[in-house]
């Protein structure tokens, strides 16, 4: 057997080849995986008493959406909590993004600002969102402030660091070329600076979205009276684990949808000029590499 890297499709007789291709097609492989996950979940539910089964969780979620009671507790309040959380998340995200962009431009443009703020930014990057959740709850109590500020504090360093990178990425060669052709300032800003930065802006925004969503949940879990995080905790404290798991799933689905259907396509579009001539390896930020699998655990 010779050593080889990623295997090419094997040669078989035409009819067998067709069946085999159908079974091993990418989409079939993915579906197989999801089925495996569901089966695994169900198995786990049978094994572990506290683990709710897929069906139970689904049923519960349905009731949270529509109404009726769950062991004496009023349900049907899905939208109340969900929208509150989304609202807090959005506000915090916008503010965190703006702050991050401003700081990022400063750090990227001025060497002095960079030496001033860079290390501090690294420390802020390293601070887990849960710490901000604790601090803001202790400072601001159980209102809307804690979740919003947690989002801001947790997300802005990621934006800043990425924007700073983007600013630094505008190559001096292209600047020289613009000098040689005497390009006016405004045109330079629009066609040279902005597009160079926009890719990094997107990466920063994507990180901010994921961290921010995490953050709002943590803040609500530890110190709110409504919202997705609070509701999840509510069910957990009541030992109603299907409720708890159900809300966690809502939380996950939201971010998957947001990231998969909004953020990634936008990022791909922003980076479409990076594609190779041969069309292989997009370079648009969505291949299966470490750098592109966004870390939500951060």
């Amino acid at each position, binding site marked *: 057997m010779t050593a080889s890297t990623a295997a090419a499709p094997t040669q078989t007789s035409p009819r067998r080849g067709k069946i085999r291709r159908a079974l091993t097609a990418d989409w079939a492989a993915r579906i197989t995986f999801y089925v495996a996950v569901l089966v695994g979940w169900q198995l786990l539910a049978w094994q572990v008493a506290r683990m709710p089964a897929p069906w139970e969780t689904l049923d519960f979620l349905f009731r949270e959406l529509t109404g009726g009671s769950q062991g004496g507790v009023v349900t049907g309040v899905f939208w109340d909590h969900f929208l509150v959380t989304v609202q807090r998340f959005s506000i915090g995200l916008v503010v965190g993004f703006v702050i991050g962009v401003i700081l990022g431009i400063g750090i990227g443009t001025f060497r002095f600002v960079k030496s001033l703020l860079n290390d501090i930014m690294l420390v802020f990057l390293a601070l887990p969102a849960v710490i901000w959740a604790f601090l803001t709850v202790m400072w601001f109590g159980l209102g809307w402030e804690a979740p919003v500020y947690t989002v801001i504090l947790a997300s802005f360093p990621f934006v800043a660091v990425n924007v700073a990178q983007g600013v630094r990425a505008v190559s001096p*060669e*292209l600047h*020289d*070329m613009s*000098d*040689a*052709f*005497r*390009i006016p300032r405004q*045109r330079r800003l629009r*066609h*040279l600076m902005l*597009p*160079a930065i926009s890719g990094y802006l997107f990466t920063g925004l994507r990180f901010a979205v994921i961290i921010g969503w995490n953050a709002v949940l943590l803040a609500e879990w530890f110190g709110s009276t409504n919202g997705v995080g609070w509701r999840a905790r509510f069910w957990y404290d009541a030992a109603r684990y299907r409720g708890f798991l159900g809300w966690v799933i809502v939380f996950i689905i939201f971010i998957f949808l947001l990231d998969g259907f909004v953020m990634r396509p936008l990022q791909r579009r922003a980076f*479409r*000029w*990076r*594609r*190779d*001539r041969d069309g292989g390896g997009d370079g648009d930020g969505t291949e299966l590499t470490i750098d592109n699998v966004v870390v939500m655990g951060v």
Partner: protein
Amino acid sequence: MATLTVKDLTKTFPAVGKGGQPVKAIGGISFEMSGQVFVSLVGPSGCGKSTLLNIVSGVDTPTSGSVAVTHDGRPAHLGYVFQDPRLLPWRTVIQNMRYVSDLEEDEARANARRYLDMVGLAHAEDMYPGQLSGGMQQRVGIARAFSVGPDLLLMDEPFSHLDAITARSLREQLQEMWNETKKTVLFVTHDVMEAVQLSNRIITLAHGGTLFDDTPIDLPFPRKASDPEFAQHQARLLGRFEDMEAERSTASRSN
């Protein structure tokens, strides 16, 4: 068409780091060129060719002396072609052409298309630089420089990063465009053969940025490398290079 006048030009770079020496890139050059001429600037590495081009284009400033680029008395319009294409990677070919143009939208497009056509890339106008080969990108760079309608065209070793075959075809294309548009061209190269092929005047610089040689080449275009007179010019120039090396080594031995 423009007039370029360089008078007693020097350029010294300040010292770098502790204990460094100031670096004299250009040590007093004077020459003049005007009209439909293709002037090549040749010389060994470190003789100040690129620095001179930077100063002429205004990207850098002289330490002393003067450089004047005029067209009918007023400051001239410049075009620049670099060693690497320097296209905005996030803009399509035609958008890159429009980036350097001061014309109105429709005029700019039409103008751009005209020059892209001249380099044979009219079909590529909506492609991104990343989708083009090195030679194609460089062609766009050339079309871009021509398209701003410059009076003086500056070219800094534009073919040095390309393979021999692509370089050859681009040289031919450049020659045709020069014939058609009648520009003043200052062309920097380290390749003597390229200089003899393209130019009607060759200026040679020595180490330390001084003028070493200034020769007109009177052969008719297009030129063939197999032509004996071509070979003569080339041999002569290479001989001058050897003289230059000899002078340099005796000078350094006596120091």
